[in-house]
């Protein structure tokens, strides 16, 4: 048992340390929320920083846990997202009694995701998955008083339990046909065996549920709408990102023999997802719900990228997720500030928002443009690279479909911008005083949105790490 394992697992260990620290804070003497929040943010920053140093290649627990630079990068992205979320929910948590629990839940879930991402074994993967899901169900219910919150939690826990049931069925079939749970050995046993394929289908459905691809997406909107903004942000960015990473790596690593099969699955899923996501997003007025459906549509685009099944494919996926972290969290940041300080969550409330809150308006606008994929924001590059990766398969029907759907998505993003800038409102949201730290987070997001796209070295770095089939 050498010390390399500590370096290999440093992110997980740090996170667990954080969790224990939180427990101590909880049982320790009463502190003011502000101080706790500041401590946590500092710790999170350290956590993020720690990930950046020392790359690590290799496995532990005989292959159950694997790690490499790419995986570390993915985890760093998740850490970054976590940090930003916590900075943005400052205003909401400042006077919330159970903030320690909140962080406990999120950190546990994050830890689960880490294990899931670097799992080398179906068992480990399953553990990680559940570890990341179950705390989120609790977190979704964090506004104990709110009816919607508990409804959301109920929906989440039930459907996720169902999906994990399905997933497990799939895993059991895979196990039954191959007799192993570790990915490396499994790859060798993948064939056209129908039972195995059915198992694969069930597994994919489980994944599709987590990344909320149509028609497995229906829980998404309700849960997003019901749960507190911070949790919604976490769900829509972090958990989705984590599952996507795992999904891609499993597809690319394990199921390479049936690549042609799952390519068509991805195409079908992406078409359905983009279409339904867009069509539903058109009509939404609740901002969180709107972002939920828009993020569903985004997932559709991501699936196109993954379907490229090349180095560019996985690179563009991670790249897009990074951009998505910045853009989506910028949007959620504004929404969370508004809902925490003004208690408004509807798009129609944002009419004339620019008159009272120019800064927030610009942040939101830039974020939305990035989500819509308008240059010079990074979203433009992200989406284009995803589609380019997909186009490598010479499936231009898909590209045409996707690019036309981009136009539809423009419509609803611009509708929000329209409300912010152009429409009048007799009762506009009053001038909000944003916490410094949240402001900082927003600045980081904006900087990220601008730089990640224009500075090509980000993409090149990701590309250099990523691996295709």
């Amino acid at each position: 048992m050498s010390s390399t394992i500590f370096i290999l697992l440093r992110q997980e260990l740090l996170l667990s340390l954080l969790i224990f620290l939180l427990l101590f804070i909880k049982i320790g003497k009463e502190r003011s929320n502000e101080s706790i929040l500041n401590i946590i943010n500092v710790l999170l920053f350290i956590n993020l920083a720690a990930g950046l140093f020392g790359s690590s290649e290799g496995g532990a627990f005989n292959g159950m846990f694997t790690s490499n630079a790419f995986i570390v990068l993915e985890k760093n992205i998740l850490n970054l997202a976590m940090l930003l979320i916590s900075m943005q929910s400052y205003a909401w948590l400042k006077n919330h009694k159970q903030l320690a629990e909140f962080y406990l839940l999120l950190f546990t879930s994050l830890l689960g995701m880490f294990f899931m991402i670097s799992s080398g074994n179906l068992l480990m993967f399953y553990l990680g998955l559940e570890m990341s899901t179950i705390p989120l169900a609790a977190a979704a219910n964090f506004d104990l008083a709110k009816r919607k919150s508990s409804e959301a939690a109920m929906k989440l826990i039930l459907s996720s339990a169902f999906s994990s049931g399905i997933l497990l069925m799939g895993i059991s079939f895979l196990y039954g046909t191959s007799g192993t749970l570790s990915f490396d050995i499994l790859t060798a046993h993948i064939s056209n065996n129908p039972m195995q394929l059915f198992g694969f289908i069930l597994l994919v459905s489980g994944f599709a549920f987590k990344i909320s691809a149509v028609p497995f997406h229906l829980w998404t909107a309700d849960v997003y709408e019901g749960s507190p903004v911070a949790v919604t942000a976490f769900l829509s960015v972090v958990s989705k990102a984590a599952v996507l990473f795992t999904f891609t790596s499993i597809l690319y690593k394990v199921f390479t023999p049936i690549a042609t099969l799952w390519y068509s699955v991805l195409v079908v899923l992406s078409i359905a997802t983009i279409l339904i996501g867009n069509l539903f997003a058109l009509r939404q007025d609740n901002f969180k719900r709107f972002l939920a459906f828009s993020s569903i549509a985004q997932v559709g685009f991501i699936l196109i990228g993954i379907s490229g099944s090349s180095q560019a494919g996985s690179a563009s996926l991670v790249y897009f997720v990074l951009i998505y972290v910045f853009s989506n969290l910028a949007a959620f940041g504004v929404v969370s500030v508004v809902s925490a300080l003004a208690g408004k969550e509807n798009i129609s409330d944002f009419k004339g928002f620019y008159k009272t809150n120019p800064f927030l308006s610009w942040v939101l606008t830039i974020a939305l443009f990035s989500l819509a994929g308008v240059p010079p924001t990074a979203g433009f590059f992200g989406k284009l690279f995803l589609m380019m990766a997909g186009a490598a398969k010479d499936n231009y029907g898909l590209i045409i479909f996707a690019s036309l759907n981009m136009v539809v998505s423009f419509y609803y993003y611009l509708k929000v911008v329209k409300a912010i800038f152009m429409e009048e409102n007799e009762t506009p949201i009053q001038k909000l005083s944003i916490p410094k730290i949240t402001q900082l987070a927003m600045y980081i997001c904006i900087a990220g949105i601008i730089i990640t796209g224009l500075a090509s070295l980000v993409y090149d770095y990701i590309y250099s790490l990523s691996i295709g089939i």
Partner: protein
Amino acid sequence: MSNYLYILWIPLLPLATFVVLGLFGRKYFAKTAGIIGTASLLTSTLLSFVAAKQYFFVDGKVNGVYQRIIALKYTWLQFSPNVSIDMGVIVDPISVMMLIVVTSVSLMVHVFSLGYMKGEERFATYYAFLSLFTFSMLGLILSVNIFQVYMFWELVGVSSFLLIGYYFNKPSAVAASKKAFIVTRFADLGFLIGILIIGFYGGSLDIGLLIEKFTSVQSPEFISITTASFLGASMLTWGLVLIFMGGAGKSAMFPLHIWLPDAMEGPTPVSALIHAATMVVAGVYLVARLFPVFSMDEAALTIVTYVGAFSALLAAVIACTQTDIKRVLAYSTMSQIGYMMFALGISKNGGESGLGFMASMFHLFTHAFFKSLLFLGAGSVIHMVHSNEMKDMGGLRKLMPITHAAFLIACLAIAGIPPFAGFFSKEEILTAAFHENKLIYGVALFTAALTSFYMFRLYFNIFWSKEAAAKAHHHDAHSQHNDTHDHGEGTWTMKLPLLILAACAVGVGFIPFSQFITSDGAAIETHIDMVFSIAPVALSIIAILLSASFYKSHNAKSDKAVAFFGGFYRAAYKKFYVDELYLFITKKIVFPLIGQPIAWADRNIVDGFMLLLANTTAKISTAIKGLQSGKVQNYALYFFGGVLALSVLFIYIWK
């Protein structure tokens, strides 16, 4: 070959005047604009006389033939290696002749306007526009390149538009200017396409080259253009006829003449300059300029002939019925131009048989003087009576003796009474017609008679016809009253041009025109055959006497005549309903049947389609909202459905 570059100054001076007056006139030269314009034009007039002297008497002739000299040629816009628009100065008999005509008439008008337009608010602008017109007209004359012709053609059109619409707050003037521009523009479309055809087959736009190529029967260009045919006519015919269409538009040939009478809304001196002497003969000039090419195509020439003859007759008939003196003059202009046209049409190229060409040019020359004289005369009459209507006039001969004398001379000239200028040119035309085409000759003769009839109808109605005199006196007193600085006949600046032009109207007929200007540049001998002249002159005199008996003193004869002609008279009075026809086509066909449907379709069909797309999307999204029922069990159900769907897909693609 000596240097004619200085000719460049003849058009450039007016241009300079235009720029200066146009930019700073309103501010700085509000009063002195007239002087400046006149002075600069005087210079160009002198220059053009110098040029004429040098060309005709010093070095234009090389072994008995007047040469075409290209004084300047500058490539202005290159289309392709050998097709380009060149700006240049061409010096040959007709261009020099036109120089004289345009500059001198324009000068007269400038001088006349000094008095006539005095105290106008936009005095400077007026002179700026006059200079612009003069520049464009001169440029047109000196063009070496058919496209250059087209450009100045357009410029002439627009300056005429500006001058007709000079009284811009008078709706009728605005309408007239619009009409003039649009009608001529329509004609120019033909011109443009003609140019495209000719240029395409000729492989060049240079007039000299084109003539060279299309006059030699062996040249490949000629062969290609004559062999290529469309709807049975050869491309050459098409090209020339379309070009002639442009000319017809400017020269108010039937059926494109409708703008000319309305154009009389402009200030009278403008009418004298543009709509009598210079612009309206541009069409004639154009045909003359390309005459060698025209002469290669019988069909085109025939069309020119008959259009010209018909217009001459039609206009003369209408002129007999009009009561607005300027309109009468306008129609007489149209009729005279018709003369020139068919004279060209019946002519051949070169030698004695080119008589028609020479005659036409000669008539253009003389007509310029007496017609502008008529207009200026009418101008001073209007200036005094403040009305264009005959009924407001009468017995003015005592009140404005000079005008009266000048007007009479002009009338005699146009009526073709020897020894006035009109006589000689008309004789030549008639002779040519007689030799070429008896029918045309007949028409010409009849028209000549009509001409003298309506001219003298005009004359008598203005200056005799006692009854109206009292009214006229009253008008006179009225005019006395409101401008005391001059008496009825206006300032000397208004009288002087009348005198000069009268002198010309008497004198220019004696110029041995055929020595200078012929179709091929070589002098031909012409003689006035007394026997031949008897018929036309006699007819004219009879017509004059007739109109005297009708209108000299107010009596019922004219009404009887009117009654006698009845419907025909009314038709003629209504200008044979051509205007109505045009109105019908535009207001009843183009606007409601083409414009409005398109505008409607654009809003409702093309744009509507885009809207439909958006709405359908919205509809679909509302239609499928039930999918998100909010019941977690349904969600699970859909989940399972998804699983099944994927399985089906797998079975489908699973080999």
